[in-house]
């Protein structure tokens, strides 16, 4: 973990509620895709946890959904706005034990950390399959960015307005039955549905929780695992399938 100041370089609206933001500053604390940062916002006591969609030495790419007041302020901040930030939080994805046939599965804004993961894999010569689920065509974003990396990308929308009609699980069952190791991020019901797909013998699941500290001090984010309580912020946010108690 590092405490540093990140400066808004640019913000671009992707859908009605999702923005792509580039923040500049010291990002050297990041070592793994799937890690996150915590931004301090004016007039908010708690920091806001956001995954790094990708990071370089001197900046981060964030994909942010304007979910409430804090994220709304964040995405509309003027270029040059500075944010006191804790960087390099959480464990991130393990790229080494990616199983036989890895697949990246993202639900909505949950695709954010998978983008950096896909880049890392591609950088290492592995082109994972990617399945992205959205509410409807109007909510779809970043599909081209995954495609541009050279990944095979499937899109599912709940209303069928783009790609496969249904959930990511429907899509996976029908179109990529061969994949057996998942890297998964999205809303908890989606994580759970994916976890019971019999084809996925193993995988890594990224969790969310309301956090106070984000660095392991307060036990605010603890969840049950097979080996007892674990902190989403410090022991996660990525957990191995076998650890998780649903």
């Amino acid at each position: 973990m590092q405490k540093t100041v990140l400066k808004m370089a640019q913000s671009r609206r992707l859908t009605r509620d999702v923005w792509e933001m580039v923040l500049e500053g010291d990002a050297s604390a990041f070592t793994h895709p799937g890690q996150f940062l915590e931004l301090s916002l004016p007039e908010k006591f708690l920091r806001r946890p956001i995954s790094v969609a990708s990071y370089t030495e001197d900046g981060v790419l964030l994909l942010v959904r304007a979910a409430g007041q804090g994220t709304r302020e964040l995405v509309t901040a003027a270029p040059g706005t500075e944010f006191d930030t804790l960087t390099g939080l959480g464990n991130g994805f393990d790229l080494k034990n990616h199983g036989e046939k890895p697949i990246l599965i993202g639900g909505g804004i949950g695709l954010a950390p998978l983008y950096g993961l896909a880049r890392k894999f591609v950088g290492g010569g592995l082109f994972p399959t990617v399945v992205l689920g959205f509410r409807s065509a109007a909510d779809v974003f970043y599909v081209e960015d995954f495609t541009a990396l050279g990944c095979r990308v499937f899109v599912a929308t709940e209303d069928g307005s783009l790609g496969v009609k249904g959930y990511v699980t429907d899509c996976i069952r029908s179109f990529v039955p061969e994949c057996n190791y998942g890297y998964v991020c999205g809303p908890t019901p989606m994580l759970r549905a994916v976890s019971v797909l019999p084809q996925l013998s193993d995988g890594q699941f990224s969790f969310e929780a309301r956090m106070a500290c984000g660095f392991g001090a307060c036990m605010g984010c603890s969840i049950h695992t097979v080996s007892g309580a674990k902190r989403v912020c410090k022991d996660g946010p990525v957990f191995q399938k076998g650890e998780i108690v649903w």
Partner: protein
Amino acid sequence: MVNLSVSLAGVELKNPVIPASGTFGYGREFAELYDLNLLGSFSFKGTTASPRFGNEQPRIAEAPAGMLNAVGLQNPGIDAVIAKEIPNMEKIFRGPLIANVGGFSLDEYAENCRKLDACPQVGILEVNISCPNVHAGGKNFGCDPNAAAEVTKAVKAVTKKPVFMKLTPNVTDIAEIARACADAGADGICLINTLLGMRIDLRTRQPILANRTGGLSGPAVFPVAVRMVWDVYEAVKLPIIGCGGVSSAEDVAEMMLAGATAVEVGAANLRNPYACKQIVENLPGVCDALGVDRITELTGGAHR
């Protein structure tokens, strides 16, 4: 050079700044950021007899200038704390530790304190009486002067270490509770714990916290904490650890003027992991500006 050292019922601290229980874990995460030996002491996470997971998710909600928590005393239980955590803490902090003790019955408090009495690393027992008494229909020990006195007696009977009773602010008359603890033999008072609060999610129309209510802490509670420290200082002749909303060296000074001998810093650590370090660093400057050579001169200054 300002002399920052203070004495809490005979336990010497190099300065009055103490991270508050539950906001500093067992110090590990902070020790990666700075040398904990710059702190006066630290109060580690509340310990119960058995391991506890605590409440279900969500446990955290936001509040104006503060936060709600309903962690619910997650801890590995007294035996694991003594076997593993205290030896670990000894490696990262050389001074006397403050052991925060929870309990759901008089026996549990006594049992935990008896075990901690045998730990030389522990300088002070801080007894958190904001816990429901399972033998009294879940009534909070800290809300009743008799129950508070009983816990004090039960604990004092099993330890020679100084016992600081940590009070809940959710009472009509904090001075009455403090007096009950003092009369029962407490060596000091720590206050305040969190104020009971609630937030509701407009979308789900349900309380945000799985536990429904949670404890409010952070700057929002600072004026309440200062007032209660003042009240207790007027009521009892015991050293006071002031706590609640402290986030700057100026706040430490204000708490001390109200009557505190030492000061705990809670939620501020969560928002800014360097909070305690910065407070310790800024304290000499604040003392200088106030024309104070020894920080102990501040204690109770507003009562004169």
